[in-house]
């Protein structure tokens, strides 16, 4: 099925479809089956978008529950166990079912072929398969959740998880294990696509930074995820059969589990932030209407982060009983990995210099990202300092650190991407005013939620506590108040973005006047992405020759 058929009566009544929309990928088949069996990367991206949004709200509900509980120092709503289950599900869902797939599997999936001028990813059916694998993993998670939850924390430390915890540890571990294969297949698909399907003229030095950072991310996905997979298998085997590899009573070593877990999970934090950095690089250039400052350095920094990121995992174990020598090495390497991040942050800032800056919603989100990521990253440096970490390890200081990067950083970038490419994905422009309000709301709510947690942490409030000293209540109340603002900030876009779908304002192919191949095709793009053969003649971010932003954008 292609053009102009089978509209819902409502749409036909409104009669607002543009010609582009009628031949777009969105209309290439209307049945549910046409979506569930699609191999079109753009449709799979939308399948992911729907799925991760669902998980974001489940994980967010757990966060809401925790923040509500923490208003009172005595624990008013949840039992100890209930609270443990809440943060475990929150962590697991947010990390593996929301944040890791968030930007790569939606925007990466949608945009990489468009940005390099390809018709699709290298292995379209594999792409669909990895969505199904992700969904199967998600079902295991939901089963573990509905079946009563798990109380181990997202880190599954042994021997608690293997010998002591009750609850559906094996189901949840299976969920993460399965979802891991989705990650591996997606990463593999991206690497192969970027290597083999670049359009004529799309040299490596002309790739958008977004593509570079996804390339780096994919390397981590392929090389780190299997380590987690096998570690979780060993954990399950330990729990089911008592094979003892992590059990000190049988001569095993629980610290070994932590090594393997973090060998994956530290690189995984770069899986979560590199795509966001890619998004922000696009947004900053589009905002400033300039070529990115130091293209080669920004691109190279992605690769450097991916590489050096594999060398620092031990900084999660400074007080866990790893040797002082290893701790010192890991501490040092953690400082090294900050250098490429510094390169990125400073280059983005320099890109804005003498720009022609648009203050539209996507760009506000991008600036929010830069600020919050910087705070999160620099507090990460504090954590990397051995003696400082001894004090703040496993306190709210750490919680604040990673929320600054993951929520303040990556989630902001995710929303920035959503606002930037929404017109491309759907063909419709949303209300910019509401978008700006939302960006401000999220920025403000975020800081109110998580800044107090730095103070709580330094005061010595351990994480995973739901009863605490009453003297700390003020900070927790502030944090919970911020979280409610944040919740509004996250729900709001659903209203105005949905409204945009129904509105009469077609976005046109290039509302922001941006460079990049994805803006040269229709919005929404046709099924095969480009109507004409693509030939690349310019480097990326050639804003000198870019069209002007649309009047009403």
């Amino acid at each position, binding site marked *: 099925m292609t053009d102009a058929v089978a509209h819902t009566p409502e749409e036909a009544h409104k009669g607002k479809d543009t010609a582009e929309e009628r031949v777009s990928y969105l209309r290439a088949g209307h049945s549910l089956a046409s979506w569930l069996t699609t191999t079109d990367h753009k449709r799979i991206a939308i399948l992911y978008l729907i799925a991760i949004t669902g998980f974001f709200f489940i994980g967010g509900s757990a966060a809401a529950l925790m923040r509500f509980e923490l208003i009172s120092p005595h624990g008013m709503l949840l039992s100890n166990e209930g609270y443990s289950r809440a943060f475990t599900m929150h962590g697991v869902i947010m990390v593996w079912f929301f944040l890791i797939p968030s930007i790569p599997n939606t925007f990466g999936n949608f945009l990489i072929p468009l940005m390099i001028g390809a018709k*699709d990813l290298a292995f379209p059916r594999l792409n669909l398969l990895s969505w199904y694998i992700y969904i199967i993993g998600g079902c295991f998670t939901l089963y573990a959740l509905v079946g009563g939850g798990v109380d181990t924390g997202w880190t599954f430390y042994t021997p608690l998880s293997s010998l002591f915890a009750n609850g559906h540890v094996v189901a949840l571990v299976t969920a993460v294990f399965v979802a891991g294969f989705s990650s591996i297949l997606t990463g593999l698909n991206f690497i192969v696509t970027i290597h*083999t399907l670049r359009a004529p003229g799309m040299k490596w030095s002309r790739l958008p930074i977004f593509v570079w950072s996804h390339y780096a991310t994919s390397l981590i996905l392929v*090389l780190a995820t299997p380590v987690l997979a096998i570690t979780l298998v060993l954990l399950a085997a330990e729990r089911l059969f008592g*094979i*003892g590899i992590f059990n000190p009573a*049988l001569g*095993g070593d629980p610290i070994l589990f932590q090594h393997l877990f973090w060998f994956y999970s530290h690189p995984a934090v770069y899986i979560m932030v590199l795509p966001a950095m890619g998004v922000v690089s696009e947004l900053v250039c589009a905002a400033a209407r300039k070529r990115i400052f130091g293209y080669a350095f920004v691109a190279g920094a992605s690769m450097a982060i991916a590489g050096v990121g594999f060398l620092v995992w031990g900084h999660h174990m400074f007080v866990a009983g790893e040797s002082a020598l290893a701790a010192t090495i890991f501490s040092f390497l953690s400082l090294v990995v900050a250098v490429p991040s510094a390169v990125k942050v400073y280059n983005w800032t320099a890109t804005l210099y003498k720009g022609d800056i648009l203050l539209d919603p996507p760009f506000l989100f991008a600036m929010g990202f830069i600020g919050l990521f910087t705070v999160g990253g620099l507090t990460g440096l504090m954590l990397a300092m051995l003696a400082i970490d001894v004090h703040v390890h496993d306190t709210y200081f750490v919680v604040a650190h990673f929320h600054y990067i993951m929520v303040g950083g990556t989630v902001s970038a995710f929303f920035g991407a959503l606002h930037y490419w929404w017109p491309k994905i759907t063909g419709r422009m949303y209300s910019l005013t509401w978008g700006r309000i939302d960006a401000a709301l999220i920025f403000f709510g975020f800081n109110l939620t998580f800044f107090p947690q730095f103070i709580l942490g330094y005061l010595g409030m351990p994480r995973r506590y739901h009863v605490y000293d009453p003297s700390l209540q003020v900070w927790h109340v502030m944090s919970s108040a911020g979280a409610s603002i944040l919740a509004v900030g996250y729900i709001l876009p659903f209203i105005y973005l949905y409204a945009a779908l129904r509105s009469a304002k077609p976005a046109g192919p290039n509302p922001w006047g941006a460079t990049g191949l994805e803006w040269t095709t229709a919005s929404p793009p046709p*099924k095969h992405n480009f109507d004409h053969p693509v030939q690349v003649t310019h480097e990326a971010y050639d804003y000198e020759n870019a069209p002007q932003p649309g009047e009403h954008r």
Partner: protein
Amino acid sequence: MSGRASQETSQGVTLKEPYARPGQQREADFLGMYLFLASEIMLFGVIVALLFADRFRHPGAAEQAAQRLKIWIGTANTAVLLTSSLFVALAVVAARAGKAKAVTGWLAAAVLLGLTFLGLKGFEYAEDFAEGVWPVLGRATPGNLFINLYFVATVLHAVHLTVGVGLLSWAGVRVKMQRTRLPGQAIVIEMTGLYWHFVDVVWVFLFPLLYLPRP
């Protein structure tokens, strides 16, 4: 299903949707498979790392425990797998030359060897259990840890091998039924072969690490 367009090129290679040139498609297939196997390297690599860590933490224990394993079955199985790899490699040569008959023959031989491996392994497990080399009832001795790792590693390998046997059989049947046409679609045999060889490589490392530690 919004099926993927595919077409035959002049060389008889089936060209699938996002690709414009056969060389491009071929490179993509190889790169994809190598990367998948790279992820498998990491998977099995962890087990190898654990074996080393175990030997470091409990000096002497592995050397003791390994003597309880059946070194001759292990050796025979290594030979079986290496030979099966040869057969698969020959199948690839035949596939590239378009000799469908030879391909099915070599694949059948390789499948047979794969099954031999699994049979021997099963027999070995049975013997192990009979002799009390048994993972679950581990007593608090380091030797048991080694035995447990032995079981994890070999079971994981056997699972991969079983998948491999399935893939080889599937490829053989497709060639036989002319669903996979040669040499145009020799890539199918090549990819299956890569996987099979990889499973062989895994065993090449597991064998000395598990069976051969001796004081």
